[in-house]
Protein backbone atom coordinates (compact mmCIF):
# COMPACT_ATOMS: atom_id res chain seq x y z
CA UNK A 1 0.00 0.00 0.00
CA UNK A 2 2.09 2.94 -1.27
CA UNK A 3 1.64 6.47 0.03
CA UNK A 4 -0.40 7.13 -3.11
CA UNK A 5 -2.96 4.43 -2.30
CA UNK A 6 -3.11 5.70 1.26
CA UNK A 7 -3.94 9.19 -0.01
CA UNK A 8 -6.69 7.84 -2.27
CA UNK A 9 -8.15 5.74 0.52
CA UNK A 10 -8.22 8.67 2.91
CA UNK A 11 -9.40 11.48 0.67
CA UNK A 12 -12.22 11.00 -1.83
CA UNK A 13 -13.82 14.08 -3.37
CA UNK A 14 -17.29 13.21 -4.58
CA UNK A 15 -19.30 14.87 -7.37
CA UNK A 16 -23.04 14.23 -7.44
CA UNK A 17 -24.70 13.65 -10.83
CA UNK A 18 -28.49 13.58 -11.18
CA UNK A 19 -29.16 11.45 -14.28
CA UNK A 20 -32.95 11.88 -14.19
CA UNK A 21 -33.56 11.00 -10.54
CA UNK A 22 -36.64 12.04 -8.53
CA UNK A 23 -34.50 13.97 -5.98
CA UNK A 24 -35.16 11.32 -3.32
CA UNK A 25 -31.62 9.91 -3.52
CA UNK A 26 -30.13 13.38 -4.08
CA UNK A 27 -31.49 14.56 -0.74
CA UNK A 28 -30.20 11.41 0.98
CA UNK A 29 -26.75 12.03 -0.53
CA UNK A 30 -26.77 15.55 0.92
CA UNK A 31 -27.99 14.02 4.17
CA UNK A 32 -24.74 12.09 4.52
CA UNK A 33 -22.88 15.42 4.88
CA UNK A 34 -25.04 16.58 7.76
CA UNK A 35 -24.03 16.23 11.42
CA UNK A 36 -25.70 12.90 12.18
CA UNK A 37 -23.78 10.99 9.49
CA UNK A 38 -20.86 13.42 8.80
CA UNK A 39 -19.09 11.76 5.91
CA UNK A 40 -16.14 14.17 6.34
CA UNK A 41 -14.83 11.85 9.07
CA UNK A 42 -13.63 9.57 6.22
CA UNK A 43 -12.21 12.43 4.20
CA UNK A 44 -15.13 12.46 1.80
CA UNK A 45 -16.09 15.90 0.57
CA UNK A 46 -18.76 17.08 -1.89
CA UNK A 47 -17.22 19.19 -4.66
CA UNK A 48 -19.05 21.21 -7.28
CA UNK A 49 -17.08 20.44 -10.45
CA UNK A 50 -16.11 17.10 -12.02
CA UNK A 51 -12.58 18.43 -12.42
CA UNK A 52 -11.98 18.24 -8.67
CA UNK A 53 -13.81 14.92 -8.27
CA UNK A 54 -12.44 11.42 -7.64
CA UNK A 55 -15.81 9.66 -7.48
CA UNK A 56 -19.07 10.26 -9.35
CA UNK A 57 -22.22 9.57 -7.32
CA UNK A 58 -24.84 8.98 -10.00
CA UNK A 59 -28.57 8.89 -9.21
CA UNK A 60 -31.46 8.28 -11.61
CA UNK A 61 -32.15 5.73 -14.37
CA UNK A 62 -30.11 7.66 -17.01
CA UNK A 63 -32.73 9.19 -19.27
CA UNK A 64 -31.96 9.49 -22.99
CA UNK A 65 -31.51 13.27 -22.69
CA UNK A 66 -28.80 13.04 -20.04
CA UNK A 67 -26.77 10.25 -21.66
CA UNK A 68 -24.19 12.22 -23.67
CA UNK A 69 -23.86 14.84 -20.94
CA UNK A 70 -23.14 11.99 -18.52
CA UNK A 71 -20.44 10.63 -20.85
CA UNK A 72 -18.86 14.09 -21.16
CA UNK A 73 -18.93 14.39 -17.37
CA UNK A 74 -17.23 11.02 -17.07
CA UNK A 75 -14.46 12.14 -19.43
CA UNK A 76 -14.08 15.47 -17.58
CA UNK A 77 -13.22 13.66 -14.34
CA UNK A 78 -9.46 13.08 -14.12
CA UNK A 79 -8.22 9.52 -13.48
CA UNK A 80 -8.19 7.54 -11.22
CA UNK A 81 -11.95 7.74 -10.71
CA UNK A 82 -14.81 5.70 -9.30
CA UNK A 83 -18.46 5.56 -10.32
CA UNK A 84 -20.95 4.78 -7.58
CA UNK A 85 -24.63 4.17 -8.47
CA UNK A 86 -26.90 5.41 -5.68
CA UNK A 87 -30.49 4.16 -5.59
CA UNK A 88 -32.47 1.42 -7.31
CA UNK A 89 -32.84 3.47 -10.50
CA UNK A 90 -29.19 3.43 -11.59
CA UNK A 91 -28.73 -0.08 -10.16
CA UNK A 92 -31.35 -1.78 -12.30
CA UNK A 93 -33.50 0.93 -13.83
CA UNK A 94 -36.02 1.03 -10.97
CA UNK A 95 -39.66 1.28 -12.04
CA UNK A 96 -38.59 2.86 -15.33
CA UNK A 97 -36.37 -0.02 -16.41
CA UNK A 98 -38.33 -0.80 -19.58
CA UNK A 99 -39.56 2.72 -20.28
CA UNK A 100 -38.83 4.21 -23.73
CA UNK A 101 -37.39 7.36 -22.12
CA UNK A 102 -34.64 5.77 -20.01
CA UNK A 103 -31.68 3.52 -20.73
CA UNK A 104 -32.60 1.23 -17.88
CA UNK A 105 -29.81 1.77 -15.37
CA UNK A 106 -26.26 3.03 -15.22
CA UNK A 107 -24.56 -0.25 -16.14
CA UNK A 108 -25.53 0.35 -19.78
CA UNK A 109 -23.61 3.64 -19.90
CA UNK A 110 -20.68 3.74 -17.44
CA UNK A 111 -18.47 1.12 -15.71
CA UNK A 112 -19.86 1.12 -12.17
CA UNK A 113 -17.69 0.27 -9.14
CA UNK A 114 -20.40 -0.10 -6.49
CA UNK A 115 -24.21 -0.19 -6.64
CA UNK A 116 -26.14 1.11 -3.62
CA UNK A 117 -29.73 -0.07 -4.07
CA UNK A 118 -32.58 1.55 -2.16
CA UNK A 119 -35.52 3.78 -2.91
CA UNK A 120 -34.08 6.01 -1.53
CA UNK A 121 -31.19 4.24 0.19
CA UNK A 122 -30.76 5.38 3.79
CA UNK A 123 -27.84 7.77 4.32
CA UNK A 124 -26.17 4.94 6.27
CA UNK A 125 -26.53 2.70 3.20
CA UNK A 126 -24.86 5.32 0.99
CA UNK A 127 -22.14 5.76 3.60
CA UNK A 128 -21.71 1.96 3.67
CA UNK A 129 -21.58 1.83 -0.14
CA UNK A 130 -18.86 4.49 -0.42
CA UNK A 131 -16.93 2.87 2.47
CA UNK A 132 -17.18 -0.43 0.60
CA UNK A 133 -15.90 1.26 -2.58
CA UNK A 134 -12.94 2.45 -0.51
CA UNK A 135 -12.45 -1.10 0.79
CA UNK A 136 -13.11 -0.12 4.41
CA UNK A 137 -16.05 -2.53 4.91
CA UNK A 138 -17.14 -5.91 3.55
CA UNK A 139 -20.10 -6.54 1.26
CA UNK A 140 -23.07 -7.90 3.21
CA UNK A 141 -25.53 -8.89 0.55
CA UNK A 142 -25.28 -12.12 -1.48
CA UNK A 143 -27.53 -13.93 -3.95
CA UNK A 144 -30.04 -16.48 -2.65
CA UNK A 145 -30.51 -19.60 -4.78
CA UNK A 146 -32.74 -22.63 -4.06
CA UNK A 147 -33.47 -25.76 -6.05
CA UNK A 148 -36.28 -28.04 -4.95
CA UNK A 149 -35.24 -31.70 -4.80
CA UNK A 150 -38.04 -34.26 -4.61
Amino acid sequence: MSALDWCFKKSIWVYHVNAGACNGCDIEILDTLTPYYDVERFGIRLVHTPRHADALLVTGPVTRQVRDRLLRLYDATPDPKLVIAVGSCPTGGGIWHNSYATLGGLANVLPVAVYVPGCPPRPEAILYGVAQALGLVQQQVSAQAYAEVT
Partner: protein
Amino acid sequence: MLKHTISELKEALVCLEAGRVTLPYPFAPHAPEGEFRGKPVLNTRKCMSCGACGNACPARLISITDEAGVRTLRFELGRCTYCGNCRDACPQEAITLSQQFELSTASTSDLEIRGEFHLQVCRRCGAPIGTLRQVGVIRERLGVVPELQIADSGFLTLCPACRRASFLDNPALAVEVTRERA
Protein backbone atom coordinates in the same frame (compact mmCIF):
# COMPACT_ATOMS: atom_id res chain seq x y z
CA MET B 1 -23.83 46.50 13.89
CA LEU B 2 -24.64 45.64 17.50
CA LYS B 3 -27.75 43.59 16.58
CA HIS B 4 -25.59 41.72 14.07
CA THR B 5 -23.00 40.71 16.65
CA ILE B 6 -25.73 39.70 19.13
CA SER B 7 -27.32 37.47 16.52
CA GLU B 8 -23.93 35.94 15.77
CA LEU B 9 -23.40 35.15 19.44
CA LYS B 10 -26.84 33.55 19.51
CA GLU B 11 -25.93 31.47 16.45
CA ALA B 12 -22.67 30.33 18.04
CA LEU B 13 -24.62 29.50 21.21
CA VAL B 14 -27.19 27.43 19.30
CA CYS B 15 -24.43 25.52 17.56
CA LEU B 16 -22.28 24.84 20.61
CA GLU B 17 -25.24 23.92 22.81
CA ALA B 18 -26.26 21.23 20.34
CA GLY B 19 -22.90 19.57 20.89
CA ARG B 20 -21.63 16.78 18.70
CA VAL B 21 -24.42 14.57 17.41
CA THR B 22 -22.58 12.38 14.92
CA LEU B 23 -23.61 8.74 15.13
CA PRO B 24 -20.72 6.24 15.43
CA TYR B 25 -21.97 4.52 12.29
CA PRO B 26 -20.48 2.40 10.54
CA PHE B 27 -18.49 1.37 13.59
CA ALA B 28 -21.71 0.83 15.55
CA PRO B 29 -24.93 -0.30 13.81
CA HIS B 30 -27.83 2.13 13.51
CA ALA B 31 -30.76 -0.19 12.85
CA PRO B 32 -34.13 1.23 11.77
CA GLU B 33 -36.98 0.86 14.27
CA GLY B 34 -40.48 -0.38 13.60
CA GLU B 35 -41.45 -2.19 10.43
CA PHE B 36 -38.73 -0.96 8.11
CA ARG B 37 -39.17 -2.01 4.47
CA GLY B 38 -35.78 -3.53 3.72
CA LYS B 39 -34.66 -6.24 1.33
CA PRO B 40 -37.39 -8.80 0.45
CA VAL B 41 -36.56 -12.35 1.57
CA LEU B 42 -38.20 -15.45 0.06
CA ASN B 43 -39.06 -18.29 2.44
CA THR B 44 -38.58 -21.17 -0.02
CA ARG B 45 -40.40 -23.71 2.17
CA LYS B 46 -43.67 -21.77 2.12
CA CYS B 47 -43.43 -20.49 -1.44
CA MET B 48 -45.46 -22.51 -3.93
CA SER B 49 -44.33 -20.30 -6.81
CA CYS B 50 -47.84 -19.27 -7.82
CA GLY B 51 -46.67 -15.91 -9.27
CA ALA B 52 -49.14 -13.63 -7.46
CA CYS B 53 -46.17 -11.48 -6.36
CA GLY B 54 -45.05 -11.08 -9.98
CA ASN B 55 -48.41 -9.63 -10.86
CA ALA B 56 -48.38 -7.14 -7.94
CA CYS B 57 -44.80 -5.88 -8.41
CA PRO B 58 -44.68 -2.37 -9.96
CA ALA B 59 -41.06 -2.78 -11.06
CA ARG B 60 -41.89 -6.09 -12.79
CA LEU B 61 -38.76 -7.65 -11.30
CA ILE B 62 -40.25 -11.10 -10.59
CA SER B 63 -40.09 -13.40 -13.62
CA ILE B 64 -41.43 -16.93 -13.84
CA THR B 65 -40.28 -19.28 -16.62
CA ASP B 66 -41.48 -22.85 -17.08
CA GLU B 67 -39.36 -25.20 -19.11
CA ALA B 68 -38.47 -28.89 -19.01
CA GLY B 69 -40.69 -29.60 -16.06
CA VAL B 70 -39.03 -26.99 -13.86
CA ARG B 71 -40.41 -23.54 -12.98
CA THR B 72 -37.69 -20.98 -12.21
CA LEU B 73 -38.83 -18.04 -10.09
CA ARG B 74 -36.39 -15.16 -10.36
CA PHE B 75 -36.31 -11.91 -8.30
CA GLU B 76 -34.02 -9.23 -9.80
CA LEU B 77 -33.84 -7.07 -6.69
CA GLY B 78 -31.60 -4.51 -8.40
CA ARG B 79 -34.78 -2.74 -9.48
CA CYS B 80 -36.68 -3.25 -6.24
CA THR B 81 -38.27 -0.11 -4.73
CA TYR B 82 -39.07 -1.87 -1.42
CA CYS B 83 -42.80 -1.02 -1.58
CA GLY B 84 -43.96 -4.31 -0.03
CA ASN B 85 -46.68 -5.09 -2.65
CA CYS B 86 -45.26 -8.61 -3.14
CA ARG B 87 -45.47 -9.27 0.60
CA ASP B 88 -49.12 -8.15 0.67
CA ALA B 89 -50.01 -10.18 -2.45
CA CYS B 90 -48.43 -13.49 -1.39
CA PRO B 91 -51.14 -16.01 -0.33
CA GLN B 92 -48.59 -18.12 1.53
CA GLU B 93 -46.91 -15.18 3.35
CA ALA B 94 -43.64 -16.54 1.94
CA ILE B 95 -42.16 -13.08 1.24
CA THR B 96 -41.11 -10.86 4.16
CA LEU B 97 -39.28 -7.52 4.04
CA SER B 98 -36.17 -7.85 6.22
CA GLN B 99 -34.63 -4.97 8.19
CA GLN B 100 -31.47 -5.17 6.07
CA PHE B 101 -30.63 -1.90 4.30
CA GLU B 102 -26.88 -2.15 3.70
CA LEU B 103 -27.27 -3.64 0.25
CA SER B 104 -24.29 -2.11 -1.55
CA THR B 105 -22.75 -4.59 -3.94
CA ALA B 106 -20.14 -4.66 -6.68
CA SER B 107 -22.37 -6.54 -9.14
CA THR B 108 -26.15 -6.60 -9.45
CA SER B 109 -26.14 -10.40 -9.75
CA ASP B 110 -25.67 -10.53 -5.96
CA LEU B 111 -29.15 -9.04 -5.64
CA GLU B 112 -30.98 -11.99 -7.17
CA ILE B 113 -33.21 -14.60 -5.60
CA ARG B 114 -33.69 -17.70 -7.71
CA GLY B 115 -35.90 -20.67 -6.94
CA GLU B 116 -36.51 -23.80 -9.01
CA PHE B 117 -39.66 -25.80 -8.37
CA HIS B 118 -40.80 -29.03 -10.03
CA LEU B 119 -43.86 -28.71 -12.21
CA GLN B 120 -46.94 -30.97 -12.05
CA VAL B 121 -47.50 -32.09 -15.62
CA CYS B 122 -50.96 -33.12 -16.94
CA ARG B 123 -51.01 -36.90 -17.20
CA ARG B 124 -52.92 -36.90 -20.53
CA CYS B 125 -51.44 -34.11 -22.64
CA GLY B 126 -48.29 -33.30 -20.70
CA ALA B 127 -49.00 -29.55 -20.44
CA PRO B 128 -47.75 -28.02 -17.14
CA ILE B 129 -50.51 -27.28 -14.62
CA GLY B 130 -48.63 -25.75 -11.71
CA THR B 131 -45.93 -26.68 -9.30
CA LEU B 132 -46.20 -29.82 -7.21
CA ARG B 133 -46.63 -27.67 -4.17
CA GLN B 134 -49.53 -25.78 -5.70
CA VAL B 135 -51.35 -29.00 -6.43
CA GLY B 136 -50.44 -30.24 -2.93
CA VAL B 137 -51.92 -27.13 -1.35
CA ILE B 138 -55.11 -27.48 -3.40
CA ARG B 139 -55.47 -31.17 -2.50
CA GLU B 140 -54.94 -30.28 1.14
CA ARG B 141 -57.54 -27.52 1.02
CA LEU B 142 -60.02 -29.67 -0.91
CA GLY B 143 -59.52 -32.48 1.57
CA VAL B 144 -60.68 -30.29 4.41
CA VAL B 145 -64.03 -29.21 2.94
CA PRO B 146 -66.41 -32.28 3.08
CA GLU B 147 -69.01 -31.35 0.45
CA LEU B 148 -66.28 -30.68 -2.09
CA GLN B 149 -65.08 -34.25 -1.63
CA ILE B 150 -64.80 -35.72 -5.13
CA ALA B 151 -64.36 -39.45 -5.32
CA ASP B 152 -61.37 -39.55 -7.58
CA SER B 153 -58.73 -36.88 -6.93
CA GLY B 154 -57.25 -37.82 -10.27
CA PHE B 155 -58.80 -34.68 -11.70
CA LEU B 156 -56.17 -32.66 -9.90
CA THR B 157 -53.47 -33.96 -12.17
CA LEU B 158 -55.37 -33.05 -15.33
CA CYS B 159 -54.92 -29.73 -17.08
CA PRO B 160 -58.13 -27.71 -17.56
CA ALA B 161 -58.48 -28.73 -21.22
CA CYS B 162 -58.14 -32.42 -20.47
CA ARG B 163 -60.40 -32.12 -17.45
CA ARG B 164 -63.15 -30.62 -19.61
CA ALA B 165 -62.62 -33.36 -22.18
CA SER B 166 -62.78 -36.09 -19.52
CA PHE B 167 -66.07 -34.68 -18.22
CA LEU B 168 -67.61 -34.87 -21.68
CA ASP B 169 -66.42 -38.45 -22.28
CA ASN B 170 -67.69 -39.71 -18.95
CA PRO B 171 -71.53 -40.38 -19.44
CA ALA B 172 -72.16 -41.21 -15.76
CA LEU B 173 -71.22 -37.70 -14.65
CA ALA B 174 -73.32 -36.09 -17.43
CA VAL B 175 -76.47 -38.01 -16.38
CA GLU B 176 -76.10 -36.96 -12.79
CA VAL B 177 -76.10 -33.29 -13.74
CA THR B 178 -79.22 -33.43 -15.94
CA ARG B 179 -81.39 -35.21 -13.31
CA GLU B 180 -81.01 -32.37 -10.87
CA ARG B 181 -82.25 -29.79 -13.41
CA ALA B 182 -85.43 -31.70 -14.33
